[in-house]
């Protein structure tokens, strides 16, 4: 019965992922494809981080290598006449990821901690700086492009077809990665994360173990890159950039690195919001950065971690007393968010070249500007008082409720500790 409860959210999710897209426009379908790819990339990354305890700042290397490998295969099919099933294209990404992962992994895992992170950064930057000059392999600055070929009765021309192909691959891969965590080796990597020294003293070659984890993570990152190549039909050296490596780090930690599905949640939320919000605001990346920093400061376990915490202590949480503070905190957060967004969006307009041109036309005065469907006076009280008020009010409420919530949670932890000691 308990198993059914656990599978229910997953089943619901799959139902939505399968049933919803045909009802959406091509733009949203493409966004969902990207969301799936980002989710797989993040889960693959977290195999190294959350499972193995190794923070990589250069995972874009395997992502990019996978994409280019698939791109070359596609070119060989498209122009070279090679016969290969289109749906299996991402396998090239896996192979490339595996090979490059094994080689770089051997080097990288010789070091740990910040040195490990720097090694991965160096490797990715080497590729990033080399690729635009290496015409043959990476197509120089322009990159490589190709076309998907029809196969098995499918044209693979429509976005929805690519979406389902991606969904199958991502589900399979995430499923494999989950199964991996349940194998002896998977349990070993968790131990490695907690206490590498002890693992060595229990008879395991820690370096070889870390190298294999690294390679597996790189393999699945390569699949993600391969799926991107299939979807976009073009790749270029920018896939190796720090921006790409940064994105996966952001997704993973906002979603929560200690929970298996955390990174997927982070990736899904950020990519979906990026798609929805990027049309309406140019400051999307700023919001992303701020959310990341806020999570790092106040919710270090990430969204997934917070969810798991609640699930773990479900029975112990005094819901009746918790409900009001939680509702209040949510409302306050929305207030603060609204206020902050207003301020940022106003500033964004006021400092934009477009507004500067308006000012020029008004003899360097300060004409009204438009945002959120209305016009605002740059120095008017009606413009700034509402958002500032929202911010102050929201922050005050949050600060008060925070103390209450923290106190309630201390009770929960006390109770858990007492139960552990056998007293409750």
């Amino acid at each position: 019965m308990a198993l059914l409860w656990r599978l229910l959210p997953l089943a619901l999710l799959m139902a939505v992922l399968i049933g919803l897209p045909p009802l959406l426009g091509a733009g949203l379908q493409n966004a969902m494809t990207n969301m799936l790819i980002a989710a797989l990339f993040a889960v693959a990354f977290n195999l190294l981080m959350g499972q193995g305890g190794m923070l990589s700042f250069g995972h874009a290397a395997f992502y990019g290598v996978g994409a280019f490998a698939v791109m070359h295969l596609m070119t060989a099919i498209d122009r070279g006449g090679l016969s290969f099933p289109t749906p299996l294209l991402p396998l090239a990404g896996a192979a490339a990821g595996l090979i490059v992962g094994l080689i770089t992994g051997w080097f990288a895992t010789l070091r740990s901690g910040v040195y490990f992170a720097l090694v991965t950064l160096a490797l990715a930057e080497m590729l990033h700086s080399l690729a635009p000059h290496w015409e043959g392999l990476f197509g120089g600055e322009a990159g490589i492009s190709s076309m998907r070929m029809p196969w098995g009765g499918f044209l693979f021309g429509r976005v929805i077809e690519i979406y389902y192909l991606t969904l199958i691959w991502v589900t399979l891969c995430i499923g494999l990665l989950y199964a991996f965590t349940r194998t002896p080796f998977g349990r070993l990597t968790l131990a490695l994360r907690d206490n590498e020294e002890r693992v060595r003293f229990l008879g395991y070659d820690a370096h070889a173990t870390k190298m294999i984890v690294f390679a597996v993570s790189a393999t699945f990152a390569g699949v993600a890159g391969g799926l991107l190549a299939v979807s976009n039909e073009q790749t270029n050296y920018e896939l190796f950039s720090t921006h790409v490596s940064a994105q996966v780090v952001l997704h993973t930690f906002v979603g929560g690195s200690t929970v298996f599905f955390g990174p997927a949640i982070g990736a899904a939320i950020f990519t979906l919001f990026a798609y929805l919000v990027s049309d309406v605001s140019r400051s999307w990346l700023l919001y992303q950065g701020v959310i990341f920093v806020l999570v790092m400061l106040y919710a270090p376990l990430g969204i997934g971690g917070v969810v798991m915490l609640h699930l773990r202590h479900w029975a112990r949480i005094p819901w009746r007393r918790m409900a009001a503070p939680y509702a209040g905190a949510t409302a306050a957060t929305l207030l603060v968010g609204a206020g902050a967004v207003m301020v940022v969006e106003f500033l964004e307009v006021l400092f934009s070249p477009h507004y500067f041109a308006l000012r020029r036309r008004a003899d360097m005065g300060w004409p009204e500007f438009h945002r959120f469907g209305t016009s605002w006076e740059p120095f008017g009280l009606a413009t700034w008082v509402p958002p500032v008020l929202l911010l102050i009010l929201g922050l005050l409420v949050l600060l008060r409720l925070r103390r209450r919530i923290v106190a309630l949670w201390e009770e929960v932890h006390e109770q858990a500790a007492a139960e552990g000691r056998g007293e409750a």
Partner: protein
Amino acid sequence: MLEFVIVSTLNGVTYGLLLFMVSAGLTLIFGMMGVLNFAHASFYMLGAYIAYSITRTIDFWIGLLVAPILVGLLGVLVERYLLRRVHRYGHAHELLLTFGLAFIFEELIKLFYGDFPVNYAMPAYLRFPAFSLFGADYPFYRIFIGLVAIGMFVLLYLLLSRTRAGLVVRAAERLPSMAEALGHNVPLVFMGVFGVGAALAGLGGAVAGAFFPTNPNMALELGVIVFVVVVVGGLGSIEGSLVASLMIGVFSSFAVGLNWSLARLFDLVGLGDWARDLGGLMTLTLSSISGTVPFLLMLIVLLVRPAGLFGERN
């Protein structure tokens, strides 16, 4: 040829000194607090932009003076209110936080100044040639950057070795708990070091931004090279970052102008055409991979001798 060598050396040394200005703070911070500050190059960028704004509204020299101070204050705030909060979650967490901050700083710059370069330039009276070399003028400002860096190094060295505050800083670097037990306010020291490091980077930005392009990407571009410098020099060693900065500065300056490739090497044995036909790695010129070699060096150092040239073996 001689012209190339002299100009490249001069360029390399001045660029290296600029790198040093930024990396000195980073290596100091890491050596003392164990935090690799990903936002360090952001302080460099902020220094440039703040100096730009002050130059436009008030005066260039005021900008050079005030920008580093403001950036230093920002650094102090960052350490006190942000970094210290996540200190208990471990070094990886601190790293990630600075990572996020770098992100935010870049986006804030884009918000206020636009996603394109700004015209931050030195005042006209500084735009004279220092001397003429083989018919071409060598700009004085490049030398100026180098002089500021040298002056800063001397000041830093004197501060650390001759003053009481410097002594406390060095003690806190070696054994923070001991220094605290002896009554020194180590958290204050940390805050101060972080602030000074940030101010140094800000000074570098204020000075260099007037000569090199000032755009929102400058933090990222310089940032990764600065990491190479501190790793090669040795995390925590200021002398190391000076040597490494000069090495990498000179190398980059030379490499950018050289069209050597492996194929040309094969020319010496008559196999040049064969090599060129192979393409790929064979035809890559030194100038194209000039950006890659520093990372290769960083990789080699990390794998062979992580302590770098002057760092302490852990």
